[in-house]
């Protein structure tokens, strides 16, 4: 009755949107009724009722949520369903002990639970006490019969179903409110209920799912308990693969079972591998065990597949594996070596029948197999002996060696998987498969902890290594054989722009056998500035100047074969068009036959040398315009001769030979004199300069913007130390523009180069009128104390074209005039 009333109150509370009141009311109700168990023989009824209460409340709560109430993580219907399930489980336990009557006990007749009218007078009263209103239990016989009836009825109740339904409701609720671990815990309980209900398939499905969570979070105690249940299920189903997988994990380092338990499991596992039936798991139902034993007996016939390949990266088996190449790279003429380390964590030594390692290049697989032909019954004998045996706690090292193929030079050889077989092919075989170089679900965390640890490990005898100190190296690079040749470069840097710079490459073989197919690649190292690449040209022929069409890098020039100790020389010519630093590469490749591990292989070797060559300007050219008196001119006057002076300053560290120079005049310029090179075959050392002087004149051209083009100055030169056949380089310098101006009047003085004291010195002045008109000119001469003049000192006359005035002066004393 109380239940009814409570239900109504709670429902009303929820409808009034006061869930806290409802919860408080429910708590009070439960606390009150918890202790009222009633008669001991029917205590399961109390638990049934408690369970019902919780379930009803949970339903109410859920309904309220559907109508808009929000629940939180710590207060949601899931808890109530969980409690309901708990009480249902208690009920099941009690029912098992109290209702455990023998089969011979018959249901009492007439049925005390039946009433004469078919309904009860008062709700909640016992049916055989109808009509009695007092608490008088005067008829003990009737009571006993009634109790028996209820107990027998209870036996027919499928408890597990009720429990599972309640648990799955709870799981759904917890999933909604983000309690994943609560969900996992309840799923474990569901799994266990399915186990009791003999539905092993469903149990295993749930338990498998939950195992991943506990494994990834590292809660080994919980994982072990789940695994134990799972093992029982798989045993009772005679499910081979699952049984073996769970045994592997229960024997491992993550399992918290005691050694005696582990020994038992190990013995069972070995029995299974030898195709015998394992012993039953402890605490299993006797009838179930009998069925299981029949199933196992069937399995002995070995129908179906008997080789189980289990990938271990998702769980923690009892064998650990690490593979390590001896070095991160190997030369192709050195055999590749690597170690495989194995460690067993089970209590007793165990024997394996085969180990094979697979690579990304399948051809190496055949070299990395260890197999021992052993008969099925030998698995238990000779356990501590032999390479194939793993002693618990000790690290076993297995060395493998093979020769890399020439095609793999420059590539990585990777271990793709390691397979370890327990048992043998004639009986049953379990193949543990590690991806990459090893490692399972717990190994990465362990490796991290080991890397951080400062603990000094005790010294072990020579052959043994600490498991934690081994780091997996699952790939290695194959590099080409070390070349045994020497490559020398002979040259005289810096190079001068545009010259044919000579580079002598000397290759000498120090190998013990003949090398063949020697090829030379030389030139500008690829990858540099594009401007440099365009302005660099390489050739083997030094006799012609190479032009733009020549490449910056000459590749694969065949050079022939070399005997041991033989040397060859090759000359290279480089022409650089711009200044700057350039990296040059000389690369020599060749083939040689070598023997590695009694196998002949052809190795391609190469050696390269890099050199940086600076390019500098050979000389600086300065051009200036001066008057015939060597005075600096800003501008040039038409028809008046002027001088062009060129100055060649050698900036090269090497002596330069100026072979010749040439002045190419623009059409607007004419030369006054013969154009002859004044620097023919001049050798300039560093810092020396060579100058030339040309007398030019420019006719009147009117006013031209920007000046008049003068022409080009061409210099032919080469390095003094260069060989005879090296061509001459010509450098063209563009002469600057000059501004030409017209002047109306030009005065020119004609003076002898010297005069004597007290002798007459004739001075001629030439006047030119450049205009078209007659001009009036006034001339005056300034007297000077040092000279005596004769002739008119002041004249005024119209100037027509050309006048010459002659004066005679006499110098007195020593003067400079």
């Amino acid at each position, binding site marked *: 009755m109380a239940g009814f009333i409570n239900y109504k109150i709670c429902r009303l509370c929820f409808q009034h949107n006061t869930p806290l009141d409802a919860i408080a009311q429910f708590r009070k109700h*439960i606390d009150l009724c*918890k202790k009222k168990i009633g008669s001991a023989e029917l205590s399961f009824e109390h638990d049934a009722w408690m369970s019902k209460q919780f379930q009803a409340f949970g339903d109410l709560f859920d309904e309220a949520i559907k109508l808009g109430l929000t629940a939180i*993580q*710590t*207060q949601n219907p899931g*808890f109530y369903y969980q*409690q309901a399930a708990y009480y249902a489980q208690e009920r099941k336990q009690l029912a098992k002990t109290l209702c455990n009557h023998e089969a011979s006990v018959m249901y009492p007749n007439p049925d005390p639970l039946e009433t004469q009218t078919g309904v009860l007078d008062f709700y909640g009263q016992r049916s055989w006490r109808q009509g009695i209103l007092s608490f008088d239990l005067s008829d003990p016989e009737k009571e006993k019969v009634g109790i028996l009836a209820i107990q027998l009825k209870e036996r027919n109740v499928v408890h597990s179903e009720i429990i599972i339904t309640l648990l799955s409701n709870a799981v759904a609720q917890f999933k909604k409110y*983000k*309690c*994943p*671990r*609560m969900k996992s*815990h309840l799923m474990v309980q569901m799994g266990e209920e399915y186990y009791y209900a003999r539905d092993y398939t469903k149990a295993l499905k749930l338990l498998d799912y939950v195992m991943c969570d506990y494994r990834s*979070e*590292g*809660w080994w*105690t*919980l994982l072990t*308990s789940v695994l134990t249940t799972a093992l029982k299920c798989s045993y009772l189903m005679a499910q081979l693969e699952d049984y073996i997988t769970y045994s592997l994990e229960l024997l491992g380092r993550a399992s918290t079972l005691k050694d005696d338990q582990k020994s038992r499991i190990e013995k069972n596992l070995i029995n299974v591998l030898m195709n015998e039936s394992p012993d039953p798991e402890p605490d299993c139902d006797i009838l179930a065990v009998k069925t299981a034993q029949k199933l196992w007996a069937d399995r002995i016939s070995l129908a179906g597949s008997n080789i189980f390949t289990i990938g271990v990266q998702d769980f923690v088996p009892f064998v650990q594996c690490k593979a390590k190449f001896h070095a991160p790279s190997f030369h192709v003429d050195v055999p590749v070596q690597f170690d495989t380390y194995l460690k067993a964590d089970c209590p007793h030594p165990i024997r394996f029948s085969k180990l094979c390692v697979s690579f990304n290049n399948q051809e190496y697989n055949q070299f990395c197999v260890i197999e021992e032909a052993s008969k099925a019954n030998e698995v238990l004998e000779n356990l501590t002996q032999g390479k194939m045996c793993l002693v618990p706690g000790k690290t076993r090292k297995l060395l493998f060696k093979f020769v890399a193929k020439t095609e793999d030079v420059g590539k990585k050889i990777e271990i793709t998987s390691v397979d370890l077989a327990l048992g043998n092919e004639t009986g049953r075989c379990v193949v543990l498969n590690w991806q990459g170089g090893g490692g399972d679900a717990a190994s990465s*965390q362990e490796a*991290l*902890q080991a890397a*951080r*640890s*400062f*603990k000094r490990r005790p010294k072990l005898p020579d052959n043994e290594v600490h498991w934690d100190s081994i780091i997996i190296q699952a790939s290695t690079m194959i590099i080409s054989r070390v070349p045994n040749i020497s490559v020398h470069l002979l040259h005289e840097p810096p190079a001068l722009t545009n010259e044919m710079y000579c580079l002598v490459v000397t290759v000498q073989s120090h190998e013990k056998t003949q090398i063949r197919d020697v090829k030379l690649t030389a030139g500008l190292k690829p990858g540099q500035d594009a401007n440099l690449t365009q302005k660099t040209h390489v050739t083997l022929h030094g006799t012609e100047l190479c032009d733009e069409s020549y490449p910056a890098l000459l590749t694969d020039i065949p050079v022939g074969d070399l005997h041991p100790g033989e040397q060859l020389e090759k000359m290279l010519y480089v022409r650089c068009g711009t200044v700057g630093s350039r990296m040059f590469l000389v690369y020599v490749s060749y083939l040689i036959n070598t023997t590695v591990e009694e196998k002949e292989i052809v190795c391609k070797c190469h050696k390269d040398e890099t050199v940086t060559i600076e390019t500098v300007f050979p000389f600086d050219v300065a051009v200036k315009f001066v008057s015939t008196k060597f005075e600096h001119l800003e501008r040039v006057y038409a028809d008046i001769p002027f001088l062009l002076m060129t100055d060649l300053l050698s900036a090269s560290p090497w002596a330069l030979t100026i072979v010749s120079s040439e002045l190419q005049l623009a059409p607007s310029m004419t030369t006054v004199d013969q154009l002859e090179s004044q620097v023919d075959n001049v050798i300039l050392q560093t810092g020396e300069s060579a100058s030339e002087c040309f007398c030019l004149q420019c006719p009147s051209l009117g006013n031209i913007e920007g000046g008049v083009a003068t022409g080009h100055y061409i210099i032919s030169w080469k390095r003094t130390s260069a060989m005879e056949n090296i061509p001459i380089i010509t450098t063209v310098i563009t002469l600057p523009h000059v501004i030409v101006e017209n002047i109306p009047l030009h005065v020119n003085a004609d003076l002898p180069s010297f005069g004597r004291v007290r002798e007459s010195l004739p001075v001629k002045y030439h006047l030119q009128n450049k205009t078209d008109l007659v001009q009036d000119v006034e001339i005056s001469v300034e007297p000077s104390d040092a000279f005596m003049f004769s002739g008119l000192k002041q004249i005024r006359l119209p100037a027509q074209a050309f006048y010459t005035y002659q004066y005679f002066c006499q110098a007195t004393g020593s003067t400079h005039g």
Partner: protein
Amino acid sequence: MAVCIAVIAKENYPLYIRSTPTENELKFHYMVHTSLDVVDEKISAMGKALVDQRELYLGLLYPTEDYKLCRYGYVTNSKVKFVMVVDSSNTALRDNEIRSMFRKLHNSYTDVMCNPFYNPGDRIQSRAFDNMVTSMMIQVC
């Protein structure tokens, strides 16, 4: 009186769990493991506030069920969590007492970390820590 004390690492695996030997150890492991849900939720809710303002003490986790066993949580700045299961049937423990117990735990844990031979992330195997936990498990508040 504490019946179970656990220290959980940042990655949620147990560094130390101890419970009174009379009880079913597995049950306590499950209790501590499931309470991590609430701890995680509380940490992520607090994560939005500044570090200074974060409270270390998390208080009561799941509501008491009928076991009369309360679970309390505490998280350090390095995300190491302490979970304590307390039997409140004998005496009603006040919040302050729980806090002081956690503070003691925190101090002992700091001592363990200060040990240069202790590698953070390994199981705690310190005798001093064990003794402190024992004293908390049998003390009567």
